[in-house]
């Protein structure tokens, strides 16, 4: 197929535009990475772009020795692992009965759950409820109030419904009850979908912020995002990190840059491997709507 001059011109412009825009998606992170490895003087005199200037490891040595940051990291790892597991368990247990024709309350229960996608729980009554339940200042407040995502549950249910019914009959002949049917057969068959949904949950837990703002007054329980926010907003928090500010191997600029990179690295590392699962999930969700 021959392209006209106008079309060829458009192709050139389009490729250039998209490549430039795509590089702005990663450039800020590379820039901050460069800043975190630069000397504070270079960082503050606007010399650093994408390559470190006056290379130093001082900032990183300091960050990686920071116990407060590591504790927050530990909290985040815990809620990501425990939260993803519990969310998956609840999601699967809810989605399975809703995918079964023989479950008589399928329609009303499904409706009850889907309605909450349009009518969100408002912030203050939600806050008061969680407090009444006794989850204030508990690490579980980061997990339990947001345990099931209706969106994810609907995706899993749709997938369960697409599994051919012949399998059920075979299982029934083997004397399988519904628990075994779900855990030994359905879950084995839905591994790709379950992987995608777990990733959605895991990223959500890794980025947990709002629930921590609402429910955690005790800084010892803060997850990583909350700790970062504290670093960004008050210089004292950051200064508390470096007890000797007279030592000029790092300053707040390089420390902030390094903490941003610290919180982002895990996502950037796993992202290339998991990307296709994420995309699959987004498309699955769209089909339902």
């Amino acid at each position, binding site marked *: 197929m021959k392209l006209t001059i*106008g079309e060829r011109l*458009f192709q050139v412009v*389009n*490729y250039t*535009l998209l*490549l430039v825009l795509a*590089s*702005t998606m*990663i450039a*800020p992170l590379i820039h*901050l990475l460069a800043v975190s490895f630069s000397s504070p003087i270079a*960082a503050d005199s*606007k010399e650093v772009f994408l390559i470190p200037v006056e290379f130093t490891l001082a900032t990183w040595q300091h960050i990686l020795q920071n116990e407060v940051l590591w504790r927050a990291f530990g909290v985040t790892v815990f809620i990501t692992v425990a939260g993803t597991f519990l969310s998956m368990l*609840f999601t699967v*247990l*809810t989605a*399975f*009965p809703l995918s079964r024709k*023989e*479950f*008589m*309350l399928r329609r009303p229960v499904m409706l*009850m759950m889907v309605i*909450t996608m*349009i*009518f969100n*729980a*408002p*912030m*203050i*009554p*939600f*806050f*008061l*409820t969680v407090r009444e339940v006794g989850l204030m200042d508990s690490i579980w407040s980061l997990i339990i*109030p*947001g*345990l*099931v995502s209706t969106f994810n549950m609907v995706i899993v249910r749709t997938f369960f419904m697409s599994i051919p019914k012949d399998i059920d009959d075979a299982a029934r002949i083997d004397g399988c*009850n*519904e628990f075994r049917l*779900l855990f030994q057969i359905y879950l084995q068959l839905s591994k790709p979908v379950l992987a995608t949904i777990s990733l959605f949950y895991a990223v959500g837990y890794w980025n947990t912020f*709002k629930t921590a*703002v609402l429910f955690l007054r005790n800084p010892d329980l803060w997850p990583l*995002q*909350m700790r970062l*926010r504290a670093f*960004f907003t008050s210089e004292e928090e950051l200064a508390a990190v470096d007890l000797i500010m007279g030592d000029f191997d790092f300053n707040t600029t390089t420390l902030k*840059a390094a*903490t*941003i990179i610290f919180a982002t690295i895990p*996502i950037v590392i796993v*992202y*290339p491997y998991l990307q296709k699962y*994420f*995309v699959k999930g*987004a*498309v699955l969700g769209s*089909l339902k*709507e």
Partner: protein
Amino acid sequence: MAERADTLAGKKSNNQQLINSRLVKNIRKHWVLYLMILPGIIYYIIFKYIPLMGSVIAFQDYQIFKGILASPWVGFENFRFLYNYEDFHEVLRNTALIAFYQLIFQFPAPIILALLFNEIRILIVKKTVQSLFYLPHFLSWVVVGGIVFELLANQGIVNAIREMFGYAPILFMQEESYFRSIVVISGIWKEVGWGTIIYLAAITAINPSLYEAAVIDGANRFKQTLYITLPLMLPTITVLFLLNIGNFLELGFDQIYNLLTPMTYSVGDIIETYVYRAGVLQGQYSLTTAIGLFQSVIGFVLLWIFNRLARKSEQGLW
């Protein structure tokens, strides 16, 4: 007449009994399914429905030690107060303005980007570009907010570039006039790539023979896009638009909270950040719940209006 009504009622209760006995049988036979879904139902009741019903404290003078049952009812008093409350007007104006800008700039962005992606023919370039565009979606707003503050700081890279061209540095994050643009641009930066996925799926679903026919008729790429791709994307666009409009005033707490400073409250304080400060931190529970309820009602009314409009072309949500 009365007799007939009686028999009708009798029939109804008969039906009810029939359903009940069928339900009992169903539970006996498939008790495992009922057991499985029980935790889910309890979760939805406690963390979704109780808070929804808890919105009634908007019509109360809620006192924490008395609880919902014993707190005095005040009717529309909280709403009447809001009507004359200067702070609320400012917050509502900020929310509506930012929501409007987002709708105009942020909503169409992934549609345009998806069309541009669709014109890339070299597969590896397409894959790479897409991967890069999807990445920011997975960063938290705390991180993105941190990035924005660092880049726009006095010693940040944006001011460094400005200085290279001889301009004086600007304190972007502290200036009221830049706040809303920063919100919209950072929102586009974070979500535009991810937003294309649904549209790209819609484009992939288009039957290639349509394009072949168009080529025979002499349509160039631009005309194909205009007369085939876009119209066939319209149902997807409509659905996403409706879902969007239903949450019109819900801008997302995380984004604004992480970009806001006390210097920019006058232009950037939105309903959610205000409700958090006045409600969660200062304990004005009833008043802030009234604000939340107001927000939900506006969202629902907008959804209802636009759904009616969309239904005229048979593309509504319901």
